[in-house]
């Protein structure tokens, strides 16, 4: 109403009768200053996250860091990434590679004394293939956390540590190593019951000392009077009437070597940690006929294979039908 009136008057009169524009408070005038504040808060959060909540950076000394890449290689534990390699440098004396790894905040507990670090690479050994995924993805550092005090400097080990399986460790003395190597199997009636954990030359170099671990569940099989022989390679006998006889413990022992043993019916006391046996080069045919009944503590799955066979075959038949 007022506006119209003033417009009419405006035709004749001066500017003084023009309507007045409304002047209102702008509630958004100060709102724009929230943006720099928000930006600063975001930056503060980034900084807080990087410096306060950041995991520690640890230094690992490697004898050989082949396959590691700066920035790209990861530290993995239980299958997930827990850290990143940030830098690779040669140590001052040139004897070691200094690898710096930035850990995730959640994995800070890995940096403890006794933690073992090693590089997982593709391995194609005779009789064993491992780390195949690293062919595509590149090598990574694996860790087995220790439980000592917190520390940030570690020395890496060359190979993956042998997973501690409960069992007894025995020592075998051999004249010759033949095809035996670390991780070669120990067989009883063709069933693997343990593995070789260490090989070294004896004190006066007259024999080879072989450390072997027998798994806990099979430990009762090893007795004081058990006989061990080298089962690697092929045993060939040529007889006038029997012709050529070729035997091997298993396909695995053919390539990676192995040790077999037998226990007589009148078996003695169970072997304990550190019991020493001699490793024969060839089995006595008599030993292979020994057939003692030794109760095992816990019946593992592997020993059931013979019983399980008839149960499996009907299922296969059903599948075929």
């Amino acid at each position, binding site marked *: 109403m007022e506006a119209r009136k003033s417009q009419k008057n405006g035709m004749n009169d001066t500017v003084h009768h023009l309507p007045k*524009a409304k002047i209102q408070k702008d509630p958004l005038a100060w709102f*724009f200053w929230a943006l720099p504040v928000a930006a600063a808060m975001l930056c503060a959060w980034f900084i807080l996250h990087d410096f306060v909540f950041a995991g520690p950076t640890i230094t690992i000394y490697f004898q050989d860091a082949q396959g590691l890449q700066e920035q790209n290689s990861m530290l993995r534990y239980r299958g997930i990434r827990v850290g990143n390699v940030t830098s690779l440098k040669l140590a001052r004396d040139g004897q070691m590679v200094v690898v710096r790894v930035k850990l995730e905040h959640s994995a800070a507990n890995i940096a403890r004394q006794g933690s073992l670090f090693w590089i997982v690479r593709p391995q194609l050994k005779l009789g064993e293939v491992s780390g195949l995924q690293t062919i595509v993805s590149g090598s990574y550092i694996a860790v087995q956390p220790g439980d000592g005090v917190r520390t940030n400097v570690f020395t890496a080990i060359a190979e993956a540590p042998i997973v501690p399986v409960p069992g007894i460790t025995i020592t075998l003395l051999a004249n010759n190593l033949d095809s035996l190597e670390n991780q070669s199997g120990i067989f009883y009636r063709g069933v693997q019951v343990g593995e070789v954990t260490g090989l070294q030359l004896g004190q006066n170099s007259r024999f080879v000392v072989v450390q072997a671990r027998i798994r806990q569940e099979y430990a009762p099989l090893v007795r004081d009077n058990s006989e061990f022989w080298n089962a690697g390679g092929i045993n060939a006998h040529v007889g006038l009437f029997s012709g050529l006889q070729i035997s091997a413990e298993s396909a695995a022992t053919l390539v990676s070597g192995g040790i077999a043993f037998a226990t007589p019916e009148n078996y003695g006391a169970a072997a304990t940690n550190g019991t020493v046996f001699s490793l024969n080069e060839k089995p006595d045919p008599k030993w292979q006929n020994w057939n003692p009944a030794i109760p095992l503590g816990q019946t593992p799955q592997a020993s059931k294979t013979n019983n399980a066979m008839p149960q499996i075959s009907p299922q296969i038949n059903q599948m075929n039908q």
Partner: protein
Amino acid sequence: MDKVVACQTCGLVQEVDDVPFGAVVKCARCNFQILHRRVGSRARTLAFTIAAGILYFPSNLYPLITAEYQGQYAQTTVLKGIQTLWGMGQYFIACLVFCTSILTPALKILGLLFITLTLHWPRYQKTRAWMYKVIRVIDPWNMLEVFLLAIGVSMVEMGEVATVHPGRGVFSFAAVVVLTLLATLTFDPRLLWDTPKKRYE
């Protein structure tokens, strides 16, 4: 100081009194805002510019993209990307990316900061005008950043082949792009030649 202004919406010619800071002028008849001058132009431009300036650092320091492919882990910042392009012999594209994503935002932010902060000084008036010209020349090139963002998003979409996470940098980068755009939009170039006696911020 009385002024007479015609409403841009309904055409009503009306009188406008002094406008204090933090207020808007509305038409007496149609209640639309009278855009005599952009409201709070200097303060808003300054706010946007400061926000962009703060976020400029994380956008260039933090990785834009974190890719995980079959256990390979790669983080890419803008600078590293430019380095890679340069190493691959793509000198032109490397220069282009450097200019559009590092140089021009920095120039724009610094320029707008200079203009808005020194606006009341009688000196540097010519410099301010020149700076504004430079910003106007840079502006279309700055739009390439939006392209870069689109490329980044398409890389994130590539998730089938590799696991690609947008890094912290990408959010700050997007924010810098939007904020610098808004800063030039809200800036009223008429402020450049306002005399100290006559100011409409």
